[in-house]
């Protein structure tokens, strides 16, 4: 793995909300083509970590690099960010799929996919449109092009959200519990799509509660607990670890 390009590097990330220290010195790397899953009890800081990686949230100290370009770093206790135009370029490297989809309700499925490539990336309309149609085909949603999000099931909406993120051709795609808002019978269709992306060697960082899924598709798994990475390694390493918190976490899950 180490000979592959490093797409994302986060070092010594610290974050507090008031008195609550949510991330305590977290460092991680994501390599090209790698699927990294992040698991852990709720409140352990997984979403905060993703929100910091995608720059929706600021951090107190630490640094983030995408494709070896520094987005931000802390020096002498102060955060330094790349210049706005550099940040804009750096942000093109990643996409994010939210737990709550966050599709644009007033735009049809196809417009949800094509608007940003056309109006943000200023790409050729016809090209964007045909790529978007291909993405919908891949998501099994070809017949839903002209639907509004509210006319779709949760599973369909999440697949549109994944397609929308992919339409911008990100290098790294983040998922924050992509199936947590779905009825159990709808999670399968979304997980299947993510699995297909993993098989195409899409670089992904996935926060999930679906343990067998994580075990199945991940190259590496991080188990977070109380703001630290408690266990990290291959799925086998992590699930066979004798870390007491990890076992407690798995034990709780199997009793649910």
């Amino acid at each position, binding site marked *: 793995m180490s000979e592959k390009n490093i797409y994302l590097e986060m070092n010594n990330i610290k974050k507090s909300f008031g008195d609550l220290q949510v991330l305590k010195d977290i460092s991680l790397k994501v390599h090209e083509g790698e699927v990294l899953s992040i698991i852990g009890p709720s409140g352990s800081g997984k979403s905060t970590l993703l929100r910091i990686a*995608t720059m*929706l949230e600021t951090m107190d100290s630490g640094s983030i690099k995408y494709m070896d370009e520094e987005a931000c770093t802390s020096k002498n206790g102060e955060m330094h960010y790349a210049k706005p135009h550099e940040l*804009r370029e750096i*942000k*093109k490297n*990643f*996409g*994010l799929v*939210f737990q*709550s989809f*966050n*599709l*644009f*309700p*007033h735009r049809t499925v196809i417009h949800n996919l094509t*608007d*940003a490539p056309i*109006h*943000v*990336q200023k790409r050729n309309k016809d090209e964007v449109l045909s790529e978007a149609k291909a993405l919908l085909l891949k998501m099994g949603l070809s017949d839903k092009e002209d639907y*509004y*999000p*509210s006319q779709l099931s949760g599973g369909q909406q999440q697949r549109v959200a994944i397609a*929308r*993120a992919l339409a*911008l051709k990100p290098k790294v795609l983040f998922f924050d519990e992509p199936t947590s808002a779905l009825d159990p019978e709808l999670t399968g269709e979304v997980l299947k799509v993510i699995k297909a992306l993993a098989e195409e060697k899409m670089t992904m960082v996935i926060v999930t509660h679906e343990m067998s899924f994580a075990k199945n598709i991940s190259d590496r798994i991080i188990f977070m607990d109380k703001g630290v990475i408690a266990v990290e390694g291959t799925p086998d390493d992590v699930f066979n670890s004798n870390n007491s918190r990890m076992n407690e976490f798995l034990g709780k899950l199997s009793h649910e």
Partner: protein
Amino acid sequence: MNFVTMLEQISSGMLKTILIFFLTLLFSLPLGWIIAFGRMSKNKILSGITGFFISVLRGTPLMLQLVVVFYGPYFLFKWSITNWRFPAIIVGFSINYAAYFAEIYRSGISAIPVGQYEAAHILGYTKIQTFFKIILPQVVRIILPAVTNEVITLVKDTSLAFTLSYMEMFTITKQIASAQTTFMPFAIAGLFYYIFNLLISFIMRRLEKRLNYY
């Protein structure tokens, strides 16, 4: 005075009433956005001042505000206000309605989930693109019923221009009624306001339906 002359005179007032109505909307609808942004500003001083301004405009009678706007320049600066009557009415109405619209806009914006901003941000939309492409279209749909209410109130409120003796329909109607000692002008005026509002409601309902596409 025969019925036709009466109708003619009232009609000339009607045009002025309609003019007040449209000019007020023309200025207050956009001005409301500026006030709403001031109110929502992260700058505490700006949002505080705007909040106070809104509460005064909503907490005092429009009639009083019209009088202040009309006579204010004279009392404060000894300016001549002979040509100021009609502009004063438009300014008074516009500022007052802008304050109401601002609060409507603000509540509409706060109804948009933060996830919409975050999704737009991740997709690379600029702040301006996010507002115009993502937020505003959703806000418009949310606020339309409340805006409709204000617009209907405005039709009736135009009659307050009589406070400044402006010859819009209601002022004329009152004059004819007292000069001729007849109730007829009031019936005509009432009918006009009623039909005008029916028309407005009809148009706004059509608009609401159009916007109910999702």
